[in-house]
């Protein structure tokens, strides 16, 4: 299956460790024109979408994402986002986006106080977005998490606003799609796992879709998120030719 080629940039901060995973999925699975963007760069090199990958940027010193957010490249990322460009923050990238004020709220220490690395089930809360159009609302995705600070927090007004505007994209759920306390791995408000900004072009999520995108190593539910993004950048009329990539 061939995909229309879009230009993706994966930002590399000192301490990023999921940058190569994101690069590999976009480059080798989806055959996208993908490049790394060094945190000291002052240009996004004309990309169509920016990925802030997972990891421990700047050793998570002070707070997760707090120092990365002042990297030179973040000036460009912020301008790009404010101009409507697609920005995706995965795990540490989500933390960076919250610190940068590109997404509301903050990510606190997991309620269990431990680092959690496991597959979780996520319910798609809104499929009418540039990040989830290949999913159905209510669909359950099986995607791993790996974090110590993924406990999403926002004040009640913000949570209400997110809910009202359909900005909550993913919630931790049970395998049958129920939102329960038991299915919430980190204590996040309202079981929230991923959100987008009010204008619908910036998404942050704690789970790692890039770790669930290569059929060679397991579940591929994460592909749907990348497919949605590629589709949203590409002209919508080409969208019907899409399907899950099978690897021989």
């Amino acid at each position, binding site marked *: 299956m061939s995909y229309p080629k879009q230009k993706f940039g994966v930002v590399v901060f000192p301490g990023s460790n999921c940058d190569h995973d994101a690069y590999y999925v976009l480059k080798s699975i989806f055959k996208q024109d993908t490049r790394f963007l060094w945190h000291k760069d002052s240009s996004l090199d004309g990309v169509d979408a920016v990925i802030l990958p997972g990891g421990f940027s700047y050793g998570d010193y002070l707070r997760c994402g707090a120092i990365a957010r*002042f990297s030179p490249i973040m000036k460009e990322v912020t301008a790009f986002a404010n101009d409507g460009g697609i920005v995706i923050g995965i795990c540490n990238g989500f933390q960076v986006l*919250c*610190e940068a004020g590109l997404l509301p709220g903050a990510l606190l*220490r997991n309620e269990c*106080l431990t680092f959690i690395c496991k597959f979780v089930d996520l319910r798609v809360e809104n499929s009418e977005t540039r990040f989830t159009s290949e999913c159905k609302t209510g669909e359950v995705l099986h995607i791993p998490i790996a974090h110590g600070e993924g406990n999403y927090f*926002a004040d009640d007004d913000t949570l209400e606003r997110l809910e009202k505007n359909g900005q909550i994209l993913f919630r931790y759920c049970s395998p049958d799609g129920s939102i329960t306390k038991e299915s919430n791995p980190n204590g996040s408000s309202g079981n929230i796992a991923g959100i987008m900004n009010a204008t619908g072009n910036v998404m942050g999520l704690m789970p790692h879709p890039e770790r669930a995108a290569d059929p060679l190593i397991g579940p591929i539910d994460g592909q749907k998120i990348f497919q949605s993004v590629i589709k949203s950048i590409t002209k919508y009329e080409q969208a019907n030719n899409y399907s899950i990539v099978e690897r021989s």
Partner: protein
Amino acid sequence: MYLAKITIILRKSILDIQGKAVHHALNSLHMNLVEEVRIGKFIEMKINTGDQEEAVRITNEACKKLLANPVMEDFSFTVEKISEGFGI
């Protein structure tokens, strides 16, 4: 030269799970009179100015822009005059 001493702590409305875990540990040491534990950060900064107002302004700006995240943390600080070369 001024020395700023900054305390950063989770906002009252946020459950401090780390503090709660330490509280349990203290209770298990039979320190049952300990009612609550909250854990934060303590930061010292040496500021190269002779002007106290400027030291306060810089510390305030540092807290607001980087040291504390207003979404989840409150900060407070003091500044005191120190002699040149005083190590932190």
